[in-house]
């Protein structure tokens, strides 16, 4: 099959198109806009049999996406950053409605200061909403994951919406060779959505989104979402197995790279993983037993799988491309929680923050990480969370600070 050079955004649009979605409510935001522009064009040209509606905000967009899915339509939409947060209230609603829509988030650092380039505070701020979360590394993976996401979301053991994350610019605007699966294969993989639990039709009145009074009803429905989310650990692997059978590409909840004999493991997610893999290859050339784990399925969190991969390793370093001010890296906590009770857990677990606002993570930084792991094994001391920030970065910001000047300078008190 031929591969085409597609941006991540275009690949996402293809994912929605091949999934034969019925409905796309939309609102623009960089770096996501190309997705909805593409879908709008295809629908206008009659290449896709779907309804496209320009909404007035992401809050409205996610509401419409949710109610359309609650009516029985297969729904797709996309957003990014501020947009995801603007619609935040509705994320919790659509998960509570148990509607299996798919939403792509193109990661972008959150304001303030306002910026365009990626980090994962936007997507991770929604980690407790009940959305299934899958983070992609390549443009191909974006397309494939959308197809898989509908299978997972619409599975009766799940019935939860899915958020797929890709990095702004690094994937959204970067062309990579992508194989566009043929329609027939997709229809073998993904049957039509035919909901038995949530729909609106005259012959069968239904109430949805209803209030509950009291904690016992509320707790029950919330915990149902937790259990349904945990089911994804099984459902994902089943779906991935079938995906491999039909399309030949295989995806796992956690991607292991040169992990088997590795002593030092770097854990990261999304598109920067490719940089990490390159660094691992270089370390290997030098004889250092390095490996990498990519967190792909973030919710539910595949703790058991992670534990198995990391059993007996010397040291692990988590690179969080996000920051929880006053606490540190967000995924570091999920990783340490997963490992804590394992008697054979890695001796050291280190925490790094890097790539904020799309800042590069270069080989020098990966080298520093590995050295810190080695040092920690030697000394027995585990360092505090560190920011990956080079001399060049420091020079750059100092230069900017100098130009900006000190607002108090020259003022008499």
């Amino acid at each position, binding site marked *: 099959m031929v591969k085409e050079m597609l941006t991540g955004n275009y690949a996402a649009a293809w994912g929605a198109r091949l999934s034969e979605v019925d409905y796309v409510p939309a609102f623009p935001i960089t770096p996501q806009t190309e997705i909805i522009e593409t879908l709008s064009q295809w629908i206008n040209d009659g290449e896709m049999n779907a309804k496209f509606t320009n909404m*007035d905000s992401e*809050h409205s967009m996610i509401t419409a996406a949710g*109610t359309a899915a609650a009516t029985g339509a297969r729904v797709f939409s996309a957003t990014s950053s501020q947009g995801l947060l603007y619609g935040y209230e509705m994320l919790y609603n659509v998960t509570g409605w148990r509607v299996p829509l798919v939403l792509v988030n193109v990661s972008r650092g959150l304001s303030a200061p306002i910026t365009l380039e990626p980090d994962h505070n936007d997507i991770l701020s929604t980690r407790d909403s009940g959305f299934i979360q899958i983070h992609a590394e390549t443009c191909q993976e974006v397309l494939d994951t959308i197809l898989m996401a509908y299978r997972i979301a619409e599975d009766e053991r799940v019935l939860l919406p899915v958020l797929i994350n890709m990095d702004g610019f690094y994937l959204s605007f970067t062309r990579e060779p992508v194989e566009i699966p043929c329609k027939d294969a997709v229809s073998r993989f993904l049957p039509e959505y035919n909901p038995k639990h949530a729909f609106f039709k005259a012959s069968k009145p239904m109430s949805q*989104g209803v209030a509950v009074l009291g904690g016992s009803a509320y707790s029950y429905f919330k915990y149902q979402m937790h259990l349904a989310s945990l089911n994804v650990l099984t459902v994902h692997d089943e779906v991935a197995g079938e995906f491999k059978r039909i399309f030949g590409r295989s995806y796992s909840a956690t991607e292991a790279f040169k992990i088997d004999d590795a002593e030092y493991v770097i854990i990261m997610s999304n598109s920067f993983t490719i940089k990490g893999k390159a660094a691992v290859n270089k370390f290997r050339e030098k004889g250092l037993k390095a490996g990498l784990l990519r967190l792909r399925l973030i919710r539910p969190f595949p703790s058991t799988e992670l534990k198995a991969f990391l059993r007996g390793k010397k040291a692990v370093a988590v690179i969080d491309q996000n920051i929880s001010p006053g606490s540190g890296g967000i995924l570091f906590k999920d990783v340490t929680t997963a490992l804590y009770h394992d008697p054979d857990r890695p001796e050291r677990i280190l925490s790094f923050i890097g790539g904020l606002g799309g800042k590069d993570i270069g080989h020098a930084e990966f080298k520093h990480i590995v050295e810190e792991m080695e040092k920690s094994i030697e000394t027995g001391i585990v360092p505090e969370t560190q920011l990956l920030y080079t001399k060049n970065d420091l020079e750059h910001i100092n230069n900017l600070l100098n130009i900006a000047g000190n607002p108090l300078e020259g003022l008499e008190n």
Partner: protein
Amino acid sequence: MSMKNAVYTKFKDISREEHISPGTALCTGCGGLLALRLAYKVLGENVVIVNAAGCFTLLSVYPYNPFSSSWMYTAMASAPAGAQGIRDALDILIKKGKLKSEENLKVVVLTGDGAANDIGLQSTSAAIHRGLDFHYFCYDNEAYSNTGFQMSSATPYGSRTATSLPGEINPQGTVQRKKDLFEIWRAHKPPYLATVSPSHPVDLSNKFEKASKFEGPKLFIALSPCPPGWSFGASNSVNIARLAVQTGIWPLKEAVYGEVKHTVIPKFKPVEKYLRTQNRYNHLFNPVKQVDVIDNIKKDVEQYWERYLDS
């Protein structure tokens, strides 16, 4: 949609069929619920209500529901967007042959004045602008009632709410004038727009009937006397609603593609009579009469009607 224009001339013309059963969690004497009950008689049962947070959200508390039709609670700000999603989904599913056309539903937004005037104004404006084929039913109890009667931008000048209490600095209570939602909506030139009151069921029924002929946004603001919020005895709701119409405070009107017509020309009973029925205006009369504030309210009513009665 039926093109038949059944005209209601008297109370007995209104269907006895009920689509909301009694025994809901709403207050006794809730004027808004009465208006909704009447509206439902014209809408029929092939309806899905899309609700915004407010008192009426408690109509549907798991596992109970008083409706013969469907219900979707959304959030405070975005019921019109929720209506858009349902309408779009029904349309595309019917078009694709996934849903039979006889399964189609009327989509009805049900929202309070706070949602309509404040937090949900944007999503409402957008739905009207998109020409969404839906009904919009705003029950106007002139405050955020569900949270304990705080001021909304539909709260009338000179009235008391929990966040515009009369005091040293503002003895009149609410300082601002009621936002003119009818005119805001009318600026969008929707096919049909009307005010209604539970005290005028024939007028209300005719308006819902007339609206059904139009495709696109069909918008209603229902005066909704609220016994606990307005502070009056629950048996008085309809009388108070009627007085609001008779004094000219609540004009009953409609606008077809923006052309306004008043459906009831009041006899202009004294405004004071209306104010005295509710304790939310008590501070205008006790301990001293705030003549200037009462005059301002009268003047507003006079000025409103001068515009229409002159032309």
